[in-house]
């Protein structure tokens, strides 16, 4: 009787292990599913549109009568907005990170961190509304010839949105630098700022840069702000005052219409999605690699 109870317990333990392992294993299927769906539908797309056209044409007009399938206007739009976001976010984030990690009291930090991290929790559609109806009208008073849809306003708002990465993650990395290294610098007569810039920041640089790259990746993949406020006009330009379209914006535009399964428009969003996935994957891999290096320094 006792033995069968133990056998039952052991069997139960094995079953639970199997269930838990399966749950972990399922997460791999999500990635396999992503790659399979994107690849299979993108390949169908490339059967109809040769990949040379995708990479060499300078216009993107798949929904027009004369269809052109050059991805570059969408890539340019995506990177233009991400670049503006990074330009806003990196200096601001770095100042905040140095301030919080080297100067601020515990009490300030306790308030500041949740506030900064909340920036990422705000629904992006709300940011979109705010960008289109508040930020753009104000910028139009300052910047001449700024159109109602442009890449400047969404870029700036995204710059704030990615502060959890550029400020908060950078601060985490700098906080991880051992106190004794700072003490050594102070002992040599360096000021706090001098220590922060020439000792702490270089020591934490891989973590700080990893945060910047994850922030940029987040800006590249962001959808609603650009779909609402950047326009729906694939435009090969570097002028932040003009309407543009990003890769994510295009996917939303096509998805809003009724798309018949297997049509060229339906397949095109998977081709664009695949390109976006690869870009995001490269950025994330660099960031993960940089973060794994943090621990090797000391």
């Amino acid at each position: 009787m006792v033995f069968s109870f133990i056998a039952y317990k052991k069997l139960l333990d094995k079953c639970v292990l199997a269930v838990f392992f399966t749950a972990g294993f399922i997460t791999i299927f999500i990635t396999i599913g992503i790659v399979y769906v994107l690849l299979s539908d993108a390949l169908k797309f490339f059967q109809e549109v040769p990949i040379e056209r995708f990479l060499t044409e300078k216009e993107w007009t798949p929904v027009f009568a004369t269809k052109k399938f050059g991805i570059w206007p969408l890539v340019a739009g995506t990177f233009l907005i991400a670049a503006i976001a990074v330009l806003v976010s990196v200096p601001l984030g770095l100042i905040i990170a140095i301030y919080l990690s080297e100067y601020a009291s515990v009490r300030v930090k306790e308030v500041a961190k949740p506030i900064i991290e909340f920036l990422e929790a705000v629904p992006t559609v709300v940011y979109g509304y705010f960008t289109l109806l508040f930020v753009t009208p104000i910028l139009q008073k300052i910047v001449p010839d700024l159109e109602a849809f442009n890449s400047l306003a969404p870029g700036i708002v995204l710059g704030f949105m990615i502060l959890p990465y550029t400020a908060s993650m950078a601060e985490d990395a700098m906080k991880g630098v051992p106190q004794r290294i700072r003490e050594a610098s102070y002992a040599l007569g360096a000021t706090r700022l001098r220590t922060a810039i020439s000792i702490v920041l270089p020591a934490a640089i891989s973590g700080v840069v990893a945060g910047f790259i994850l922030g940029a990746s987040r800006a590249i993949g962001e959808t609603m702000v650009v779909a609402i406020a950047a326009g729906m006009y694939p435009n090969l330009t570097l002028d932040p005052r003009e309407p543009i379209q990003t890769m994510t914006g295009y996917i939303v535009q096509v998805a809003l219409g009724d798309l018949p399964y297997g049509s060229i428009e339906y397949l095109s969003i998977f081709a664009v999605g695949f390109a976006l996935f690869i870009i995001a994957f490269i950025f994330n891999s660099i960031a993960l690699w940089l973060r794994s290096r943090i621990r090797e320094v000391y």
Partner: protein
Amino acid sequence: MGRKTISSKPDIIFPIIGFLAFLLVVSFMITLIVDIAIDGYEKLIDPSFYTSYPSRFPEKAGILSGWVGTTLVMAGAIFWSLLIGIPAGIYLEEYATKRGIIGKIETIIELNINNLAAVPAIIYGLLALGIFVYRFKLGESILTAGLTLSILMLPVIVVNTREAIRRIPRDIREGAYAVGATKWDTIRDHILPYSLGGILTGLIIAASRAIGETAPLVTIGALTFIAFLPPSPFTSEFPFFSLEKAWEVLMSPFTVLPIQIFNWVSRPQAAFQINAAAAGFVLLVLTVIMNALAYYLRQRVRRKYIW
């Protein structure tokens, strides 16, 4: 003495600059909240806004189908993400051996979850469109939407589950094993109860992100104009619950608050913008409450268990 005052000058100026930079962020957020509250005020104080369906006429339009849809979709998303996320997290912390072929799979699972957290949300929308909608034929339904959002929430839940479990000291497990408990006994009676607070925090954070998510649901074909609610699965006769009706609920077309806002923002008539702002404010308040709750819970858990 003179040298010292010169060299410590940056240490007086920089904290001021740093604090101003932080104030800039705070004022950005306050402006956002106040702007949306003012724009939507007219509708926010109108009770019929919360009990009306969307409409062609902005003054009659409301968010009834939006918040009902959000509730149902989120219920599904929470169910699915917990179903996979908690066991996966427990496995990686408690069972993973990191040896042999299984060890290789474990490393892949771990890397994979880190990567999933950084995939753009719209890619999950494409995954759901390709798999759930067209290959599994689940349609543009509440079930599909719940599954889609659960994939988004999964990495956050796994990471938070693992962190909560990792904080439990080894002694607790050894103590349980010493009195003859099996691994599952230990997990059920000790690991799970002690890590529940941390897991709950992760769930709330994940849900607060998912509730405002728009892009993946646009991709799977959420409708913007829904002038009806899904049927109620509860019946007046015994057993008071109809499985058939419940399935109908899962398969019904839906809209959610963020989609409704997106639709209203994209309309040219200015009157719809008021609706968009009001619904945006409702959504914003929901996320603030959820994040505050998560913050409070996290503080409490930290104070409750000091090992």
